[in-house]
Structure formats: C-alpha cells, structure tokens
C-alpha cells in the first residue's frame, strides 16, 4: 500500500470539472485508489464519491492506493490534486 497527504490549493476546491478529470486520471491505473478527508474514505474512480467529499481549498486529502501500480498512482493523483488551479 502506498499513501501521500496533500493540501488543496484550488480556490474553488475539488469542483465538478476537476472532479471529473480526477476520476479520469484515476481510472488509468489498475490499483484501487481511495481519497480520504477527515476520516471519510471514497473511491477515486467514482465521480459521485469524489464529489461527495466536497473538498475545499486548504482541505487535507490523503491519497491511498493498493495494487501493482500503487506508488505511481499515488504520486500521479497527489500531484494532480496539488497542481489544480482555477479550472
């Protein structure tokens, strides 16, 4: 298992459009990928799951993955979340 915690910088948080992009990115990996916010865990490959996190600017998100490409997945998704800017 691999994991990494990042902070959302995007002023409008993890909103509909970035959420959809994130699900697309996550779906490229074989590993099971989870996002965790305040103990709430959701499937990163589920748009509804990601949207229901309602992640805002300055929220801390932990990316966790399990599977053959877990490390690559965590690095990629964490970087994706960190670089989000006004989309």
């Amino acid at each position: 298992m691999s994991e990494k915690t990042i902070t959302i910088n995007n002023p409008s948080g993890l909103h509909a459009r970035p959420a959809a992009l994130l699900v697309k990115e996550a779906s490229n990996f074989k590993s099971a990928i989870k996002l965790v916010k305040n103990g709430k865990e959701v499937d990163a490959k589920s748009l509804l799951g990601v949207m229901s996190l309602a992640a805002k600017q300055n929220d801390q998100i932990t990316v966790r993955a399990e599977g053959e490409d877990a490390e690559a997945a965590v690095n990629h998704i964490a970087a994706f979340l960190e670089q989000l800017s006004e989309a």
Partner: protein
Amino acid sequence: MSQTLQGVGAAPGLKLGQAVWWRKEKPVAPSRTITDPKSEIEKLDQAIAQAKEQIEKLREIAAERMGEEEAAVFDAHFAFLDDPAFTGEMKNRIENQKKNAEAVCQDVTEEMGALMASLDDEYMKARADDIRDVGSRLLLILLGKQPFDPSLLTPGSVVIAEELTPSDTAQFPEGVAGMVTAKGSKTAHAAIMARTLGIPAVLGLGSKIEQIKDGDTIVVDGDKGTIQINPDQDVINRVRTQIEQQEKARALALKEAKAEAKTADGKRIQVFANIGSLSDIEIALKNHAEGVGLFRTEFLYLENDHWPTEEEQYQAYAKVLSSFGERPVVIRTLDIGGDKELPYAKLPKEENPFLGHRAIRFCLANPDLFKTQLRALLRASVHGNLWIMFPMIENCSEIRQAKALLNECREELISEGVQVADKIPVGIMVEIPAAAIAADLLAKEVDFMSIGTNDLTQYTLAADRGNEQVAHLYDAAHPAVLRLVKMTCDAAAKANILVGMCGELAGDPSMTELLIGLGLAELSMSASTIPEVKQQVRSTDTAEAKKLAEQAILLEDGDQVRNLAKKG
C-alpha cells in the same frame, strides 16, 4: 361532454390540440430476497443500458432545442450510470444482501441523494436532484414502466402536467400547441419559457386538471386563461377559424415587423427584445427586434461551476453585440441575490433576499468580481453598439461608484493597449420605488433609464409574485405602479434622456397605447410578442394615448386599467 376550466393565462395565444399528460410518478419498489444474484445483476445491467439509451436521446433533443450548455446536464446523468458509488454499489448489494435489483436501486438512490443533499455545498445539493432523476429512471425501467418521454409529444400536442420545470419545457419538440399545469403562476419560469417559445399557456388550474384525460381535445386560450375540454364540433370550427385569422394576422405582423415602429402620428418607438441566453439571439433576430433592451448576464454565472472569467464573458458579449451590429444592445450587469443562487459563491442565506445584498449592492461590495465583468464588457464594446445598465439602483452614489469602477477599467484597458469604444451609454434599471420617486435626481447621472416592471411591481405592492396566496395582488397595471412609471418618464423627459421599459408589462400588446401615453420611448419584451406590439404602436396616436394614460392613473385598480386599455 364539453367543459370549460379557468386558470391563469400565462402566455398568450389560442390553440387547439390533443392532451398529453406529462406524468412524473414516484415509483415504489417491492423488496424481496433473491437466490440468483448473477441473473439479478444481469437484469440491472440491461436496465442501465436502456436508461443510457433514453438519456442519449434526451440529450440529443435538448442540444438541438436549447444548445450544448443546456444538454450538458445529461452527461452527468450518463456518467452516474457507470459510477462505482452508484450502480456499482447496487451490484455489491445484490451480491451481499441478496436483495432484488429494484429494492437496491431504490435504496442506493435514496441514500446517495440524501448524502448529496446533506453536503454543505449548493452545487452538490443540486446534484442530488440529478441522482434522484437517474435513479427513478432506472427504477421505472426495472419495474417495466416508462418515464415520460418527450418524443411522445407531436405537433399539436397540448402538454398537461402537475408542474413543469424549465428543463422539462426545454425538451418540448417543435410544434407543441399549448401548455396546461395545475401549479404555477404568470411569472413562473415555465411561463417565461412558454412566452419565449410562443406557446399559449394556462397555469394554476389546481386539482381541476385531473378531469383532463390523455387524448382529449383541448382548446387553450392563453389570453383569457381558459381551457375547454372536448368542446362541441361547433366550438371547434369556430376556434379553428379564429386561429386561422390570428395566424394570418400574425404572419402579416411578422412581415411588417421588419419596418421600424412609428405611431400613426409619426413618433418613433423602439421595440427591443429581452434576452437571457445566447440561444435567444436567433429568436430575437427572427422577430425583427430593433435592438436588445435587456441582456441578462446571469446565465453566465448560473450555468458555471466557477466565477466566469473575463475571457468567457468577453466571448458571450462579443457574440451578442456582433449579432446585432449597429442596433443597441443594453447589457445589464450581474443581478444575483434574491431567488438566484450561485453554487460556487457561498452567498450567505438571508431572511429577506429581495430586500437584501443583491445586484449592484453585491457588485459594489465585491469590486474585483464586478471589474471582471466591466472589463469584459468594455473589451467587447468594439464589436457592436454596447449600452451598459446597472440593476437595483436606489441612489446617486451607487451610480457614481459604478461609473468610477467602469472608468478605472477603461483606463486599465487603454494602458494595456486594448481597444475600447469611445462612447458607451450608461444607464440604470428603475425597479425600486425610491428610484422612480427620485428619478429626477438619478436622471442627471445617466444616459438612459429602463423601468423593470416585475420588481417595481412587487416592491410597490409588497406582493411576492411567486406566492400563490398573494399572487392576485401582484398586478403591473395597478395605478400606483403606473404613477411611478409616469414619474420616471417625466423625469427622463426633463433631463432629456431616453426612457424604456423592460418588464413583462412592456410585452403586453393590450397595454402598448397606454405605455406610449405614459411617455415610454422604448419597449423591450420577449421576442415573440415584438411583431404584435409593433402593430399596436402603428395604430396608436400619441395625443390620444396621453389622454388614456391620464385617465388610467386615476382609476382604482389594475382591472379597471385593463378594461380601459382594451376599449382604448
């Protein structure tokens, strides 16, 4: 047997057609234990595939009728059907709980909907409706029932419904003859849509609507606000002749609509269109609008999941300005607050939003957001004949502040080497009674004024047009409202500036003569009524209109005014 029902005439016109019920039933799923999860999951997969087909069809129709932006909501519906948290979870439960597909579909939809609705985020809350919509579509399919399919509507259909949302009316195919609902008033969104599409509508029939059966012959009279169910052949023939005559008159009006509108004695009255989105441009041009008297910019904000950028706004403004060429386009700056909510903005809830922090008040308090819009407007100004209008003005200081920001933006752009039109008329909406009463003071600060009768009426009469209990008190033809209109027109005449009207009253052909008599020089309305109003302008004599107006403001109520106007 023939029967006549009285409702509220919400969009004018007379049509004859066949009733089609637009039912929105809430399906109920029986719960049972299953032994073969595999075949249950297969059943669910088939239902998902069918739901996708339906949604694809809906999306196509919506894109064709309303444009890509309106159709995008169906993309979300489509995506949910593949979502592990939604249909994926249903399959898990079939496997683990050994429950039937219908029951897990209902459970997951309810839970997911409740979860989204509980989030502290307006945008996500709105997604709850999407989830429930998709979930009930799926459940209906599983139960072997069909959700209402708008392609059942054919030319000549009269849509009968408990209530219609704008997204329902968006799916109307071409040629729908009329619209009849149990709930709703003249100012409901569905009513505005009906007027835009030129479909006669009778709303607010209440439980009487249940007497209508699918396939009944219905006469919809949007002017009188009545419908007739299965009338005698005599009546049908009479109505047919009437419709033919009206269509001929309408065709003639449309043919003559190309020409400028002048009264019988030669006074020029400008007849403009109100526009609320880019898809309205074409309807306005088709009806020969002489310009745009009110371009509402809210759609840019409401249809986005972020504050629209300067570039996004610029593109929209440039499009509308270039579409109208030399004809004036009055663009109103952001008017939110009140009933409108921005999902991404987190505006605090107010006890009394219509008397609260909205429109120009909000913009002046958020100068960065306001300047983004003003910069976009100024950049677009080179593409046509831009007029800028500020909403909800109540004192001179607000105008001066707004103009100062506008100037600041102009100087910034010029120093950046961006071209801006030299002369851009700046005006205000007169919609707060105080603005009408003190119009002489405000007139000194601006190039034009436009009376927004919808808000002016509700503020003057202290009646919420959306509240069925007091909706009958809401009447733009009330002499008190007309007196405020006259005060505004008199002040504009004294200051020698243009005065117009962009509320719904302006688009009522039976009121045209009266409005000209009150002193209005520009009328802006839903595009479909332009040809008829132009005809009314041509048959008006200004001296007589003035006499009519003087009589009208001395009457007791709106009904008396309307009767007088009809006799005119």
